[in-house]
């Protein structure tokens, strides 16, 4: 008679159900998402020089990040300071954008008020045009 071992529970547990397809799919998705994160967050060494604020998908502000300023968007209060941006206050319920705090790259998105704040690196095209007009 074969003696029962303590490992017998594995026969009825989760492990014998796992197939090679699960494992490969898990690894594939892990590589894709972590690779994607490196691509999205790690790719740019330069953090960007312009703060772009879009409301209802229309660009409302395009401001330099190195000039401190507070912008009142009616629903949101956006603050630019020390080359960083944050939403200082918002009139929505959960205030996700306020909790996100200061950012020096990437974006802050407020879905209820349809506001997108992005830090972008824009080449000096603007400076040239500014120089001509100014």
């Amino acid at each position, binding site marked *: 008679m074969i003696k029962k071992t303590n490992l017998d529970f594995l026969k*009825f*547990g*989760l492990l014998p*159900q*796992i*197939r*090679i*397809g*699960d494992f490969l*799919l*898990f690894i594939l*998705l*892990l590589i*894709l*998402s*972590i*690779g*994607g*994160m490196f*691509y*999205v*967050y790690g790719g740019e060494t330069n953090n960007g020089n312009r703060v772009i604020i*879009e409301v209802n*998908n229309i660009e409302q502000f395009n401001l330099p990040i190195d000039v401190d300023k507070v912008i009142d968007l009616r629903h949101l209060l956006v603050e630019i300071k020390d080359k960083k941006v944050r939403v200082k206050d918002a009139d929505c319920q*959960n205030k*996700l954008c306020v909790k996100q705090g200061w950012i020096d790259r*990437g*974006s802050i*998105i407020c*879905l209820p008020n*349809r506001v*997108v704040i*992005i830090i972008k690196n824009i080449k000096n095209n603007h400076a040239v045009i500014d120089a001509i007009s100014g």
Partner: protein
Amino acid sequence: MQSQDKYRIAVLAAYAIALHGVERFIPMPIPWLRFGFANIIALTTLILFGFKAAMFVTIIRIVIGSMIIGTFLGPAFIMSLTAGISATLFMGLFYTLFGRLFSPIGISLIGALFHNLAQLGTAYFLFIHNLNAMLMIAPLIILIGIFSGALNGAATALIIQKIRENP
């Protein structure tokens, strides 16, 4: 549809609605983050009773669940509906086509992936028309989805095993 199937769908949808509601009380570091426990029921239904029943359970769960929570026809409801339907659709597709290659965990991973993709797609087309912002957030959401998807898949595997042991 036989009346037995109707009872099954009603009971399963009730389980899914309960999980959908209870899940809101689990504290999360980020408020929009969810485990998606209701998907356990959708996947169990898919494997035990077929694709049509799973789709019924998903749609009933989202419509009634959103009425209880109070987000019916709001943005959260639309995102939840498109995501739920596409997750169930692709889980059904993968289960019929490649069912032998995957355990419930693999199918659940597919569901989580397409849930998140559909949610990002809906957010893009309906709310924030900014591809850059969406691409920035996509990898993080998909990464979290892998873990919650695997967890749900494991739960489904254990539930189905229990049901098959004592029918």
